[in-house]
């Protein structure tokens, strides 16, 4: 099936098996390995990307459903060589340890901030409730988002 879509502002039109998972398209076909796979069933959130302004688990999206959609991955956060404020805040707050959950955390919280620029702590916690982290105990991640949400 020929599918047209945009990833990080770039237009693509590709012939793909339509049940291919979005995560496999991103990682294997487009080489965007910033999007990680931790469970393959929408429980860990490491594969989170933003599709038409909302966070989705890219491991659960068949590419037949990205027709005409705009997808943003962690590689698309930076603009003109400058980190997004959220990326910078993650670094400053020590929210990055092993870093494997980081892309998913960034995309889940970016989606939150796009919809709600001033979330409170509970809203931040809910926004990352589907993103697991074994390193940080979440607190530095929550602080990083709070810093940007001020």
């Amino acid at each position, binding site marked *: 099936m020929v599918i047209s879509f945009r990833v990080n502002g770039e237009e693509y039109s590709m012939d793909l098996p339509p049940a291919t998972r979005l995560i496999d398209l991103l*990682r294997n076909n487009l080489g*965007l*390995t*910033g*999007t*990680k*796979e*931790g*469970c*393959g*069933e929408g*429980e*860990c959130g*490491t594969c989170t990307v933003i599709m038409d302004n909302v966070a989705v688990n890219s491991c659960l999206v068949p590419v037949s459903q990205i027709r005409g959609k705009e997808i943003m*991955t*962690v*590689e698309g*956060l*930076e603009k003109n060589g400058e*980190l997004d404020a959220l*990326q*910078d805040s*993650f*670094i*400053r707050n*020590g929210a*990055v*340890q*092993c*870093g*494997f*959950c*980081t*892309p998913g955390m*960034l995309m889940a919280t970016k989606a939150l901030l796009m919809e709600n620029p001033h979330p409170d702590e*509970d809203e*931040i*916690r*809910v926004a*990352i*409730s*589907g*993103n*697991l*982290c*074994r*390193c*940080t*105990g*979440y*607190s*530095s*991640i*929550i602080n990083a988002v709070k810093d940007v949400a001020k």
Partner: protein
Amino acid sequence: MKLVDKLKYVGHTYPVHDAYQKVRGEVVYASDMKLRNMLYAKLLLSPIAHGNITGIDISDAEKVPGVVKIFSHLNTPDRRFSRYRIIPDQSGCPEDERLFTDKVRFQGDRVAAVVARSPEAASKAVSLIRVKYEEIKPLVTVSQALEESHIKIHDSGNLIQEYDLMFGDEPDHTDNAVATGTTTATQKMHHAAMENHAYTADYDSGGKLTIWSSCQGVYGVRTILADLLDISYNNVRVIKAPIGGSFGGKQEAIFEPLVAFMAKDLRRPVHLALDREEAIVATMTRPATETTIKSRVSDDGRILSCDLMTLFDAGAYATSSIDNAYAMAKKVPRLYRVPYYRHRCSVVYTNTPVAGGTRGWGGPEILTPFEIHMDAVARDLRMDPIELRLKNLVHPGDIDKATGFSLGNARIIDCLEKGAMEFRWKERYGSFPGSGRYRRGVGVACAAHKNGMYGGFPEHSTMTIKMNEDGGFILNACLHEVGCGTLTSIRLIAAEMLDVPVDMITVSEADTENSPYDFGSYGSRVTYICGECAKRTASLVKDKIMNCASVIMRTPKQYLYAENGTVFRINGERESLTYREIATISKTQNNTDIVVTHTYHGTSNPGAYGAHFVEAEVDTGTGTVRLTDYLAVHDVGKAINPGMVEGQILGCVQMGIGYALYEEIKVSERGRVINNSFKNYHLVNAPDMPDVRVMLVEAGGDDGPFEAKSIGEVATVPSAPAVINAVNNAIGTSLSDMPLTPEKIMAALCRAETEKG
């Protein structure tokens, strides 16, 4: 003023070294690796827990387009190995597994693997392999394995090892002693690193094997691979790939031998990346244990004797279980002054997922039962649990009964006293838990851990520091960054010693071909041993720089001092040479290279300590628990990178709460893993994570760099017992069957209700 009071880099917070690359998604993790011409492996794991393989039919699987080769016990050597061994001829490492088994011993045992040109083809082919099993009754608990010993999981029998260790002299019978007995069961737990295990191996035409592994110790992997595959060590190159977390789960060479063998056999790169189900079932778990503790305590609260008996479930293969079980016996004497301590333990095979080292290395498995026991003693004595602990905790300078070495500047009493003040323990402990649906209680627990392996194992590290022409440095070490900020800590230590900005120092990671020797990232040894090695190596480099400066400036060394990358002459007219000038002139004019290789060997192993304080709210309607306050206090000697120390503590607490309340790999009577997915194996997520306050006791006094001690493991030890003690305090129970699920809490409440009548 002490040196540590005017530090420029050490003691200040820095991000992990590659945080910038990580937020951009550009770090190529083990699971992201791709080599030219690479093949993909997919495992066929046993669906049953115990049985002999009587037939493997690959005729349909072979026909799948893209399949290159199918491996099983039929076409691989039956040479046995231990995945845990890290040095040649290591004792306590039974060689009880082979690449592919002909007899499956747990659900998840390695039966076959397909190597194909695409992951899809490999998966498809695996689903088409037909295996015939002759089932044997699975033995899924330790007691079952001991009782039904005629069913042998391994030819050697089901009992792997027994020990009976005694420290101190058995006391005379004391009349006014209170005897208390408790039994605590700890469960199998998944390490749950966010990245599953991944490996890429290549074998070139020159006969060299290279493997990029998500491992915690490259030299351990090398000795296993080289000896197993009969390749000389110089022809095995193990490179530690960027890792998305480990927590001990990547400490052993679980799948490296397999991937290396397949690459060597096919002479092509082979990549294996596990999925979550495979990681839960087929890698390693925190060992399940059951410990019965009998203590005698004087009526004024002094421990007289402790007698412990542990059943240790090793799972289907021995791996690290013998050492892990021994480690358990040595924890309590590091924490409490116990005049007579006896610990008996049986390490036993079962037909369940394989046990292995997990953050805390025996600490959570034994100190959780012990700290639950201490609360039981306090109840029996009607004594405040903190008062009881204060009477028995070790003091600075105490000798560790188990090893005969000093515990160093052991500041657990400080931790407990400071924490109790901050937490307002006295006021909260006695307060009424409430009589409504929600009951509140508080709990405390203490923990001791170690700093490296000195006393039980060789303990040294080697590093090379090379000065570049521009005055910067390459610190060449065998380090394994697993998300703890190790590389940053080492950089801070070197920067402090050399007095140059942190970004002038590059620290390299483990690669057997380029790194000096080091054991790896475990045993709470990295900061204490590797950090001190970095400090000493940097100090030697600094000496060398001063020597070179002395020659160039024609001034005796004692008239020179260095500051900020520049060497000055004392009382001179600010005459100076920059590091750049020194390095360049030495290299280009004086035939001198500024480079030092140094081996540091540890000579001490002080205790690392912590005390956690928890307030828990129990919903007596549903049995669920909410943590409403949490304080972690740790004796770290000195925090090299305080932000990351805090990160380690918070991550440990996340794991500890999971251990206490949620996480358990459940195995059915048939030996099937019931919850092999994050859908039903729950980690603590953000909404359930309490705010954790952290206090550090930085009293220094030991041999680590800038007097620092370990933190990454010890901080998970007191977490679970503190939570459990808080729950028991809230609802007046003495629960000790972990984890405390809502079901167990409700059952206990119902029992209490019935007993009240």
